[in-house]
């Protein structure tokens, strides 16, 4: 739905010859587009304004690097700035966990981690994910307890998730009030020698003073080392209000961004980070219990700008594609050599992912292609048919599609149970992808300034 910002800027700057330094006019023209991009990505307006004052100052007068357009240069400056605001280091390819990833567990055990947030933001699921992570990665003994006595079956939900994650949960006593549950949980955690106590709370509106006071009282009683605001990546302009209020009234120490596996651009992350001053520590990236990752500022900044989530793409691909294959594929992409065999291989991998549109959305420069693909109604079945077409070709045809005359195409169509039109369509989309790969390959060499696009190479 959104074209890539760079391509939009590319259009604006198309007529411009490269100049030595960015003029005020260049920067203003580019920033007008960037503003729209950020607002469409749900970055809150006051945050956009604050950012722009700083970015403008930084950008005017900057030398445009060779082989880079003024538009790309501005986007790079904005990108780096966003990464810094999000708490990362734009020079690092992958942001270190210390920038906000690590959960603070320092203290006399058991230490408490309190989860707060609006209704439906994903607190209960995040509790279980965090419990599993601390147990697995940090070898901590974890106890979880639900203080949500409002939503029907909320306590049961945490108990069931605890079973799935093999993390114990506090037994439920009917009618017990949240503060009492919190105290009993702390006592139980101490008796059972737990390292960490994770407390799930009821979803509450930040304007509900009674419930906010209740959360503050719970925090007062258990003295958590972390009070994490769980917020949804789909959140709009309200993110500012929400983060401010939770921070002022309860005092948060960090933010967990959920539903990052959706296709929302996640500007709320930037808003919440900017207004609360608290780091985003973790992000939820799927429905499975192990889908909780350390926050990666570079990755989210790229997404907010509509630059494609290259790191996310690489990681997702690497999960499915064997490491070696992935490296070969990356090398081919960079060289611009992309055959029908590679396409068949990719189709196979894509089919495993079950999520073509989301996957392509992560690729830089795929904005337009994405909408074409949506029009072409690409789904797993369709992919299987395309795969069948390629598999019905001879080795020679696959490596050199130019030999595919009418009679060969007819043979392939009947061999794959499709039609000549479908064969033609496949070849057309192959040519498009091959061209795209060549472009990316060329860019992958010198064009993108450092930090603008995370490198493709660390694939494993």
């Amino acid at each position, binding site marked *: 739905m959104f074209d890539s910002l760079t391509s939009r800027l590319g259009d604006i700057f198309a007529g411009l010859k490269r100049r030595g330094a960015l003029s005020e006019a260049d920067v203003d023209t580019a920033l007008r587009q960037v503003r729209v991009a950020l607002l469409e990505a749900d970055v809150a307006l006051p945050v956009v304004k604050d950012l722009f004052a700083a970015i403008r100052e930084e950008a005017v007068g900057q030398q445009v690097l060779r082989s880079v357009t003024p538009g790309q240069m501005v986007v790079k400056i904005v990108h780096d700035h966003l990464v810094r605001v999000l708490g990362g280091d734009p020079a690092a390819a992958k942001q270190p966990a210390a920038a906000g990833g690590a959960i603070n567990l320092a203290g006399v055990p058991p230490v408490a981690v309190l989860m707060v947030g609006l209704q439906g933001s994903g607190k209960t699921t995040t509790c279980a994910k965090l419990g599993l992570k601390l147990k697995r990665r940090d070898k901590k003994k974890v106890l979880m307890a639900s203080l949500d006595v409002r939503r029907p079956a909320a306590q049961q939900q945490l108990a069931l998730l605890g079973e799935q994650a093999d993390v114990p949960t506090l037994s439920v006593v009917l009618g017990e009030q949240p503060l009492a549950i919190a105290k009993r949980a702390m006592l139980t955690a101490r008796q059972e020698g737990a390292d960490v106590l994770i407390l799930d709370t009821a979803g509450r509106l930040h304007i509900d003073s009674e419930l906010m006071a209740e959360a503050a009282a719970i925090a007062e009683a258990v003295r958590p080392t972390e009070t994490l605001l769980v917020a949804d990546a789909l*959140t709009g302009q*309200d993110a500012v209000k929400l983060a401010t209020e939770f921070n002022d009234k309860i005092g948060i120490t960090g933010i967990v961004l959920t539903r990052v*596996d959706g296709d929302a651009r996640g500007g709320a992350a930037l808003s919440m980070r900017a207004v609360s001053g608290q780091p985003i520590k973790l992000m939820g990236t799927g429905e499975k219990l192990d889908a909780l990752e350390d926050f990666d500022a570079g990755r989210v900044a790229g997404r907010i700008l509509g630059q494609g989530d290259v790191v996310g793409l690489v990681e997702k691909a690497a999960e499915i594609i064997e490491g070696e294959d992935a490296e070969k594929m990356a090398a081919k992409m960079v060289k611009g050599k992309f055959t029908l065999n590679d396409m068949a291989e990719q189709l196979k991998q894509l089919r495993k992912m079950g999520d073509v549109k*989301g996957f392509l959305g992560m690729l830089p420069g795929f904005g337009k292609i994405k909408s074409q693909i949506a029009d072409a109604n690409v789904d*797993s079945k369709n992919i299987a048919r395309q795969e069948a077409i390629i598999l019905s070709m001879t080795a020679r045809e696959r490596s050199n599609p130019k030999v595919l005359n009418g009679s060969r195409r007819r043979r392939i169509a009947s061999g794959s149970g499709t039609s000549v039109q479908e064969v033609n369509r496949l070849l057309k989309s192959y040519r498009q992808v091959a061209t795209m790969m060549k472009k990316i390959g060329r860019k992958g060499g010198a064009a993108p300034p450092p930090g603008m696009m995370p490198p493709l190479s660390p694939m494993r």
Partner: protein
Amino acid sequence: MSDTDKKKWLGRLRHGLSKSSAKFKDGIGGIFDKRQLDGALVEELEDFLISADLGVATAARLAQSLADTRFNREITPAEVRQALADEIAAILAPVARAFAVDKAHKPHVVLVCGVNGGGKTTTIGKLAKQFRGAGHTVMLAAADTFRAAAIEQLQAWGERADCPVVAGATGADAAGLAYDALLRAQAENTDVLMIDTAGRLHNRADLMAELRKIVQVVKKLDATAPHDRLLVMDATIGQNAHAQVEVFRDMVDITGLVMTKLDGTAKGGVVVALAEKFALPVLAIGVGEGIDDMRAFDAQAFARSLMGLED
């Protein structure tokens, strides 16, 4: 709706919205106090509409339409509010439609879907109560077989609303469960069957296909079912709502939207943009956690409250 009922819900809506429109109101008051409407002010007005999640395009159009008629004239904050409220109400009026149970269908099947955490199960509980209050027999189908304790949550609502809940085991086939529920609803001559589904992100093709399967399976028993396909989203949502509506509409041909959690500070302003773009009816709004906190969507009241105007 009787007059007192209407008063009551307007009050409640305003109670929620007044918190959200407070800042909005101040903003407009702040910029427009005894000022001339010029280009810079139009831009600022646009900014305030953007802050209400109306989106860049809709905000620009609304601000521009105000400029078209009032440019270079002195304008008071009250006039701005009134003009914008009228404009917004005009956009929303065609999509404000009360949910109607069609007695011709036995049962009237309602499929409820949306992304995770939007408030599907709660919405079903509240609607069930309303339908029961209107004298309909209601059955609920717990086809969210994925999320832990989703079934128990729906069962709790079923008890509150006094209607049977058809449920299987967690992990069971959602489409199969919906089929069984419809079979039972038909046998018991139930008026309304509401099918709760698992939350799903619209960019998960596999999960969307699963949703479509529920529709196809239900059609085997009643080719006209499900008669309503509701998309539930909460008021905090930003511009991703466009993508959500688009994909859910393409997959299951959404017949109406439900916007929940309007009792917070989130303005749900994206509804205005959605109305312009998709023209899908907004069938109900959620204004609280209680079983009675569900209302029909009233364009005029919504627009006026959004702009901080009293009746």
